[in-house]
């Protein structure tokens, strides 16, 4: 008689729960020393459910299949000079921002899940964290592989890892993960597993990647969707940990709510980068940031929080502010980067007439009223040979580390400033959300490594901008930075496609 095939449930039970053993000669608290200090109460780890019931054997099988499909596309992309088929060379700047800003976070997530998985007394949670950790390692590897092809043809990609640890705008995503990883294991799970994976990563990986496809970038869309297929599992894990914590003990509810409030706000600030990628950096546009936010936060997040209401969990406290900001976020962020492109490892530009019209149409309440005139003025300055670069260093928010360029939502012409005094020192914030986070744990955030402060303290290579940018950041000045118009990227692109720049056309005509 052949052995009976195990059902998914039986297999999961044998290959996950059955791996646990009794701790006979060491005290539980010695083995899992971090399980209690955050105030979370776990009464029964066996109540942990993994709805996908994925076991290691099935995990390797399906991940291998995903990798084979993915690498077949990378090979085809490279062999067919896929870089020539993107919408235009401006698009590649979104890829640069992704590689320097997002891919290193995948590595942080790999490390983070390995670390917190070790701290959980429940075997179901440990196995789920182990798989997620491996997924995240796969993500950083496949992303580096995919984008290494662009590195052969475009500037600004070669020092992504060095830059991630140093460059001013990259401290925004980096500090987000540093913050999560220096919290306790349960806060990390709510921060990354739930608030980031469940509530926010769809905004990064779904509409943006669909946009990559629409701009001819098959390599990026494929790693994006291949990574996102793991994210679907991560989202489910994130939702599971929340339900598990809330069902374990009523005392967990206010702690979890505070973490949700904090990490939703931290996450929306990081996604500012994605907002401007979608609205300004994709030459062929699929949907606006505002539309994406409506589908993936307001609708999907709304359904989620309605589902969690039975536990007494409410929408994140600054959700309303984030919803109001969807009308402004990408325009304000793009303005900041346009100001400081001389200090960035990617190019910016002013949208052309057709693109401005698209922004007016997608943002009827705000674009023409608050942003279009400023952008047209900058475009005029550029035409007159006086492209505007801001020569000062901006003040950064102590919590999210973004330059203080966001405005009040009830008055979009007034920059939002919040302050707190702690032990005689004054700290500045871009929003109520960021101030609240600081006020709850000031001892943590006074230690923030703020790039501008570090430059002024002399810790970033020297006193001159060139010492910082070329020396400390390793930017190739005149190549990696400055406006797209006139960049070597633009010249090469035009050469490949037999196109002429506006300047060349003018010269010929005269």
């Amino acid at each position: 008689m052949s052995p009976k095939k195990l059902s998914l449930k039986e297999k999961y039970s044998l290959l996950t729960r059955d791996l646990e053993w009794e701790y006979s000669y060491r005290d539980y608290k010695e083995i899992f020393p971090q399980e209690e200090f955050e105030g979370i109460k776990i009464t029964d780890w066996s109540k942990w459910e993994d709805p996908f019931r994925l076991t290691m054997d099935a995990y390797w099988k399906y991940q291998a299949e995903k990798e084979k499909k993915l690498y077949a596309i990378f090979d085809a992309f490279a062999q067919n000079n896929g870089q020539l088929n993107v919408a235009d060379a401006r698009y590649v700047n979104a890829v640069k921002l992704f590689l320097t800003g997002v891919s290193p976070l995948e590595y942080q997530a790999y490390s983070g899940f390995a670390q917190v998985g070790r701290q959980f007394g429940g075997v179901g949670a440990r196995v789920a964290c182990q798989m997620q950790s491996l997924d995240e390692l796969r993500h950083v590897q496949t992303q580096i592989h995919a984008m290494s092809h662009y590195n052969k043809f475009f500037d600004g990609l070669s020092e992504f890892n060095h830059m991630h640890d140093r460059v001013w705008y990259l401290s925004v995503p980096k500090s987000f993960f540093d913050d999560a990883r220096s919290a306790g294991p349960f806060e990390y799970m709510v921060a990354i597993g739930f608030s980031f994976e469940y509530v926010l990563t769809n905004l990064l990986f779904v509409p943006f990647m669909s946009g990559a496809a629409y701009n001819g970038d098959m390599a990026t869309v494929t790693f994006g969707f291949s990574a996102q297929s793991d994210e679907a599992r991560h989202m489910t894990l994130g939702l599971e940990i929340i339900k598990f914590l809330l069902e374990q003990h009523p005392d967990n509810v206010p702690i979890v709510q505070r973490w949700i409030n904090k990490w939703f706000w931290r996450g929306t600030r990081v996604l500012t980068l994605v907002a401007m990628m979608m609205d300004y950096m994709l030459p062929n546009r699929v949907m606006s940031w505002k539309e994406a936010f409506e589908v993936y936060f307001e609708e999907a997040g709304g359904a989620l929080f309605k589902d969690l209401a039975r536990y007494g969990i409410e929408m994140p406290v600054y959700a309303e502010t984030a919803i109001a900001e969807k009308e402004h976020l990408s325009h304000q962020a793009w303005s900041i980067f346009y100001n400081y492109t001389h200090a960035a490892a990617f190019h910016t530009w002013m949208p052309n007439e057709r693109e401005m019209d698209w922004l007016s149409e997608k943002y009827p309440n705000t674009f023409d009223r608050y942003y279009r005139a400023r952008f047209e003025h900058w475009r005029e300055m550029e035409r007159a040979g006086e492209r505007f670069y801001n020569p000062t260093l901006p003040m950064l928010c102590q919590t999210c580390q973004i330059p203080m360029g966001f405005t009040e939502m009830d008055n979009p012409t007034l920059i939002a400033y919040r302050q707190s005094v702690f032990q005689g020192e004054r700290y500045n914030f871009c929003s109520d959300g960021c101030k609240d986070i600081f006020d709850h744990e000031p001892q943590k955030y006074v230690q923030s490594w703020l790039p501008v402060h570090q430059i002024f303290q002399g810790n970033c290579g020297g006193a001159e901008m060139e010492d910082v940018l070329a020396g400390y950041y390793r930017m190739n000045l005149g190549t990696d930075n400055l406006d797209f118009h006139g960049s070597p990227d633009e010249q090469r692109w035009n050469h490949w496609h037999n196109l002429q720049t506006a300047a060349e056309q003018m010269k010929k005509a005269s």
Partner: protein
Amino acid sequence: MSKVYLALQDNEESHYIVEAVEEDNPAVTVIYQPAMIRMENEGQMVVRRETVEEKMGRDWEVQSIHVNLITLGGNVEEDDDALTLSWND
């Protein structure tokens, strides 16, 4: 009632899964976006192994949906016969 959703990569295999979902969830809305197919339904959505196998004309394991999956929204319940998404309103 909130909407659950399931997004798949737009490829040959997914087309059969979409056909099966349409058959088993008559009210489902299917939205085609660049490189992806998004399906939405009020309250609940089920992907049944039997229906997918019938559309594909071969054996199909529910867990192999991970190969083509992009994202989903809703509480997940998975066993040998079906993947179900639902919200408890």
